[in-house]
């Protein structure tokens, strides 16, 4: 088999094998590029609740009062913290919390939920898993380089690198090069 034939075969099969991760990393890339504008992994919701006058008591009693008033399942309560003389928080499983103003009885109930799909693809893309996933991600990075090289060279003639290919490769090089030269200097 000639080398171009081999490259086409490698490009086709490695490309197919990488479809899932390429889409996952691409999706995550879009999501985390805009980290300043939103949280790509979690969705937060806050609602105001009024608990009325708060009876004096120990922190444990205050926690019990909040749990009763908001009808939480006591099994879901993790604990509490007294942030100041007037600020008290109760934590529930899953990162949920109630922040209470002891003077007014006003509280905010914050809940957190993972964004479906995005949480998982971000964890893979940003290598939150560490350990062995690092090697899988390394293999994927190498596969992408193989795809670039085989993709660039597998066609010959006018459709190949010596024909229209060189313009596209050149244009693709100019974009990052332009940013490096004009923005990073």
């Amino acid at each position, binding site marked *: 088999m000639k080398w171009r034939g081999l490259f086409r075969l490698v490009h086709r099969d490695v490309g197919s*094998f990488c479809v899932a991760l390429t889409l996952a990393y691409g999706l995550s890339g879009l999501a985390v590029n805009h980290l300043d504008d939103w949280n790509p992994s979690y969705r937060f919701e806050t609602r105001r609740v009024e608990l009325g006058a708060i009876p004096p008591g120990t922190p444990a009693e205050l926690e019990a009062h909040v749990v009763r008033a908001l009808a939480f399942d006591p099994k879901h309560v993790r604990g509490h913290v007294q942030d100041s003389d007037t600020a008290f928080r109760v934590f529930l499983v899953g990162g949920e919390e109630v922040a209470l103003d002891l003077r007014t009885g006003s509280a905010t109930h914050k809940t957190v939920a993972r964004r479906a799909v995005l949480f998982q693809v971000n964890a893979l893309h*940003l*290598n*939150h898993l560490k350990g*062995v996933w690092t090697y899988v991600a390394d293999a994927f990075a190498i596969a992408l380089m193989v795809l670039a090289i085989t993709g660039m060279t597998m066609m010959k003639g006018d459709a190949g690198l010596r024909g229209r290919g060189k313009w596209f490769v050149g244009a693709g090089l100019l974009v990052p090069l332009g940013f490096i030269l004009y923005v990073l200097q």
Partner: protein
Amino acid sequence: MRSLAPARLAVILAALLMAVPACDKGPARGEAAAKLAAGADTAAKATAEPAAAPGTPYGAGVKLAAATSIAEILGAPETFKGKTVRVEGMITDVCAQRGCWMELAGEAAGEKLRFKVDDGDMVFPVEAKGKYAVAEGVVAVNELTGDDARAYAEYQAKEAGKEFDPASVTDPMRIVRLDGVGAVLRDQK
């Protein structure tokens, strides 16, 4: 190459990648699984942590046996500056964007110590709020000028999604934090 049926070739490729975890002998497998399930109270505890600190390990875990109280560190930060300490406390806040810090509560009201790591070094899940952390790190003391303090406070407010009034910060600020080495998170003390 052509003699291999495509299905067989694809399965071999996948099997090769799946075999990597099987070759891994370290604690990372349990750790990774636990981190995926982070926030769930049933997070895997089958890790190679010392018996003194059960839970889900992050980074290098915890090596020191004796804990220093957060009050002690905040009371005399210069004494501890540059020293590696172990602290324990309830997690009251976590960096929502990158999971790159968590705040631990001391015994007294308002006592908090931030445990900071480099982005991606360890990633603490937002769902960890209210859990108990045993953390080990190096005490860092940073003196901020008025301008730096304002910029810092503005960043903190933005991160927390709160409004910021620049006039509210005029004085220099001292930041005491723990530069994280490792931690163990668990449901209860």
